[in-house]
């Protein structure tokens, strides 16, 4: 059936096509597919489905190269979320997703709806969400606009997750001018399900009914997917109406109703209506099931009258789902939704005819052949070429940068680093998140290198963490990509888990720029190498491109969300030192590497040098050493060395738990050949600081795995402070200095201007 334009539809002109973000070639492709000029509704549908956000047109060829297999992977990329088996008939569904652009213009709703979207991705698989994580990147806290963004994003994440009753247990937060105009807000959700309750978003069963479930459809968020697929500009604030509005209470009802619906067996498929709303959810379901679908927009429950098919199809109203109900069970589906005061309406049907058809009553307003709407999407293989400027930065000899006069006292430098917001305690943020609801949180925010949740009914635990140092990726994307995965694996190993699988959120700039596409290609290659070496397949994720503001692109930031498994959750190991007199062992080896460090960035304002090398064989051996030592019950604490290097890591072991400060005395003389600032603050990879009452046993395990390890000192009572013997000197840091630097930095910065008050003038990006 050939669709007819609706009265009042604008005429299709090159200008209208351009406004929909389609290139000339893409438009020709569309006309070619249809064999005619598209209707306005069809143009809208294609503009959403072929947007970068929905189509992955620049990234798909490279994403296909990521390793995705392991015997325990039940669902890899291509579904609402990835799923792995954890034994005992249980499985874990998890995924990370970005909400960067909405959060840049409307931080509260942007972040809140990001949380809502990722929750739906997980519970549509039949999993009950048990944990949220978030990975945030902001500009400097010196900027009032950044403080406004931080306050809004954190409140948005908190209000949504808290209302849902899903604990927010971990994450990572970094601050760097590179994110000033374009913050990154990545949310990860983890859910648990019985393997036999896994459900997919695959339309099937000719004659089965397609039902819209949950909230009504309004005019909010129209073209959100396209908005997410362009650079941010000074005009972006005008696109605030494209940001959706979240309602966590409705989402909570939807969560309970959906899980009940899936358990009832009345539905064969469930799909979140996320980006590009009804359009994308219905087209993707049809494509996965290789069936036709027909949708009648008049049957979609709407919030306001007079909505056109174009608007109904492209609305991104939140808290909605599409389900495929077994024919004849529609009333039973309705009854379950009614119990939760929600509605479910039949809006279409699975059909044998291979078409994607949208009608308005009896009138066809859009029709595409078969599943080509999804499969015929253009794919690009852009040019990749590294930026000469970045090569020059990487090659800079950072060891030649002279130390500041104050640095003669290394304790001064350490204290300054402890108050860098990237390093400092994030308690100001996470005390706004309920981290203990559901009573499974064994290690919560700030307690360990990763969060640990117990799994009821088993002895097992899950370890969860997000990680990515974008500065490393910026200066060397291949190495930075490797480190992002390796650090996440190290973090879950530090709490006692075996790294299992990852989800990733690939935040990059404009892929049509060769230097950006080079970063993308190389970072993915580095990630792949690390995933293979560490045995952690990619089960899904999200690509967020065009993260650029007038000031330029963000650091390339392929955020890794790692899931690890503890066989015995009672072994979960914190990061803080515990018992005085415990031996302190450094696993791994310091180097003279100083490039790309937080030390250079925070103390010297320099972003340069090569990031530290990442030897994946050693990383794997370190993971094995940590895992074996912890499972043998040998470690009282474990903490990896990352931003700020060894000195910051050991200081964190002393003061991270403000209720139980511990001193330490360590001797770094064995490495006196190394320059002291590289030894103290360099970020050599593959290292962890552990404490134990049985040093011999830990050293023996390290030796077995081929990991250099050395007993460097002893845990002390808090009044003895932190003493590091380096280059023949004793560097002494009172714990109160370290603790106050670490714990007060962010609260102090956030107090500087009541963020809400200055928000009005900030739309322009003014710095106050």
């Amino acid at each position, binding site marked *: 059936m050939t669709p007819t334009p609706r009265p009042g539809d604008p005429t299709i002109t090159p200008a209208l096509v351009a406004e929909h973000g389609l290139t000339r070639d893409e438009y020709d492709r569309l006309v070619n597919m249809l064999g005619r000029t598209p209707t306005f509704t069809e143009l809208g549908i294609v503009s959403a489905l072929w947007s970068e956000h929905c189509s992955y047109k620049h990234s798909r060829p490279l994403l296909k190269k990521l390793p995705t297999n392991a015997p325990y992977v039940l669902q890899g990329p291509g579904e609402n979320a990835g799923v792995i088996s954890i034994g005992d008939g249980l499985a874990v569904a998890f995924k990370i997703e970005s909400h960067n652009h909405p959060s840049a213009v409307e931080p509260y709703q942007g972040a809140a709806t990001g949380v809502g979207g990722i929750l739906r991705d997980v519970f549509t698989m039949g999993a009950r969400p048990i944990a949220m994580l978030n990975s945030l990147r902001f500009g400097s806290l010196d900027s009032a606009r950044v403080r406004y963004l931080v306050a809004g994003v954190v*409140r948005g994440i908190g209000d949504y997750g*808290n209302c849902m*009753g899903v604990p927010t247990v971990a994450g990572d937060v970094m601050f760097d001018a590179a994110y000033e105009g374009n913050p990154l807000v990545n949310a990860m959700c983890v859910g648990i399900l019985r393997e036999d309750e896994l459900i997919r978003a695959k339309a099937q069963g000719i004659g089965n009914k397609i039902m819209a479930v949950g909230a009504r459809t309004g005019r909010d968020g129209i073209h959100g997917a396209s908005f997410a697929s362009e650079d941010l500009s000074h005009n972006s604030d005008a696109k605030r109406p494209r940001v959706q509005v979240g309602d966590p*209470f409705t989402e*909570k009802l939807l969560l309970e109703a959906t899980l009940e619906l899936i358990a009832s067996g009345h539905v064969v498929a469930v799909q979140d209506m996320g980006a590009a709303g009804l359009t994308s959810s219905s087209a993707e379901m049809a494509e996965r099931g290789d069936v036709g679908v027909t949708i009648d927009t008049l049957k979609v429950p709407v919030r306001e009258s007079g909505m056109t098919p174009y608007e109904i199809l492209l609305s991104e109203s939140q808290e909605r789902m599409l389900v495929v109900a077994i024919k004849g069970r529609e009333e039973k589906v309705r009854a379950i939704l009614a119990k939760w005061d929600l509605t479910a309406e039949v809006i279409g049907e699975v059909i044998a005819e291979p078409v994607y058809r949208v009608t308005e009553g009896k009138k066809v307003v859009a029709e595409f052949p078969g599943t080509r709407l999804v499969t015929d999407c253009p794919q690009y293989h852009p040019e990749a070429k590294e930026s000469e400027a970045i090569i020059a930065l990487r090659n800079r000899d950072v060891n030649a940068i002279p130390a500041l006069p104050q640095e003669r006292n290394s304790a001064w430098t350490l204290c300054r680093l402890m108050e860098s917001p990237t390093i400092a305690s994030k308690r100001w943020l996470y005390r*706004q998140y*309920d981290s*203990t609801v559901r*009573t499974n949180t064994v290690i919560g925010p700030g307690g360990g290198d990763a969060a640990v949740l117990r799994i009821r009914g088993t002895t097992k635990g899950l370890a969860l963490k997000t990680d990515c140092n974008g500065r490393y990726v910026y200066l060397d994307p291949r190495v930075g990509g490797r480190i992002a995965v390796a650090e996440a694996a190290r973090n879950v190993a530090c709490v006692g888990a075996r790294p299992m699988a990852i989800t990733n959120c690939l935040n990059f700039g404009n892929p049509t720029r060769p230097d950006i596409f080079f970063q993308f290609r190389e970072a993915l290659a580095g990630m792949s190498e690390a995933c293979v070496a560490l045995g952690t397949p990619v089960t899904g994720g999200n690509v967020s491109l065009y993260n650029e503001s007038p000031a330029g692109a963000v650091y390339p930031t392929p955020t890794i969300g790692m899931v690890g498994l503890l066989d015995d959750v009672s072994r979960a190991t914190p990061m803080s030192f515990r018992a005085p007199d415990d031996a302190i062992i450094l696993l791994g080896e310091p180097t003279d590497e100083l490039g790309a460090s937080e030390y250079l960035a925070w103390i010297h304002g320099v972003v340069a040098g090569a990031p530290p090398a990442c030897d994946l064989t050693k990383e794997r051996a370190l993971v094995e050493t940590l895992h074996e030592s912890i499972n043998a019950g040998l470690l009282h604490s474990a903490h990896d060395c990352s931003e700020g290097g060894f000195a910051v890591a050991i200081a964190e072991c002393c003061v991270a738990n403000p209720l139980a400060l511990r001193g330490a005395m360590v001797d770094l003389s064995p490495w006196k050949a190394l320059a002291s600032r590289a030894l103290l603050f360099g970020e050599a990879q593959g290292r962890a600081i552990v404490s134990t009452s049985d040093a011999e046993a830990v050293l023996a395990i390290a030796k077995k795995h081929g990991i250099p390890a050395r007993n460097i000192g002893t845990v002390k009572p808090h009044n003895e402070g932190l003493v590091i013997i380096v280059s023949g000197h004793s560097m002494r840091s009172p714990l109160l200095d370290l603790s106050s630097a670490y714990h007060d930095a962010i609260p102090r910065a956030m107090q500087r201007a009541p963020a809400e008050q200055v928000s009005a003038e900030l739309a322009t990006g003014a710095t106050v």
Partner: protein
Amino acid sequence: MKVGIVRFPGSNCEDDAFHAVVYQLGEEAVMLWHKDHDLQGSDVIILPGGFSYGDYLRAGAIARFSPIMSEVAAHAKNGGIVLGICNGFQIACEAGLLPGALLHNDVGYRSMPVTIRVEHANTAFTSAAKVGQCLTMPIAHGEGRFAASEDLLDELESNAQVLFRYVDASGETTVDANPNGAMRSIAGICNAARNVIGLMPHPERAVDPILGSDDGLVLFESLLVAAHA
């Protein structure tokens, strides 16, 4: 003892309460749907935490109109034990089962461990604890600042209805130890008849040492004593 846990549409701590009663205490618990009128013969009613109806208006303001709440009120009037935790405390206040009100925290939402001091042991929820005993358990709320008129506060004090106060590590009430600005550091109270109890902290999240504290257990054990009395 049979514990009935009321499930409002936006409750989210009902499973935690259930686990505390069934797995830690070894007692029977049933979920009570807010649209029902049947308490299923429960000895003790728990109004659990969460966001009963989204709570966009005021925490607990709508929940008190739920069908089950008339049964809960009757149960309380007959001397039955009702325990409101967090949002359940807010609902109990809105429903008039407890005096006072819970306002927005002076500092915004707070999720953290707090220490509370048991002020009186002569209620169904504190009888196994000692007066002056300090218990550590999490809070997680945005509207937990207990407020009442000075007269009412004096009355609560003189009737020994203030059951828990926020204290520091040494057991003293201080400004810093008060996480939400509650008047007179009040964390929990009971009604004049001493059978309806409400508190903002989450004892059901502190019943297992692996989660950092099992200090809440003594409160649930008190219920057991009362129910078998």
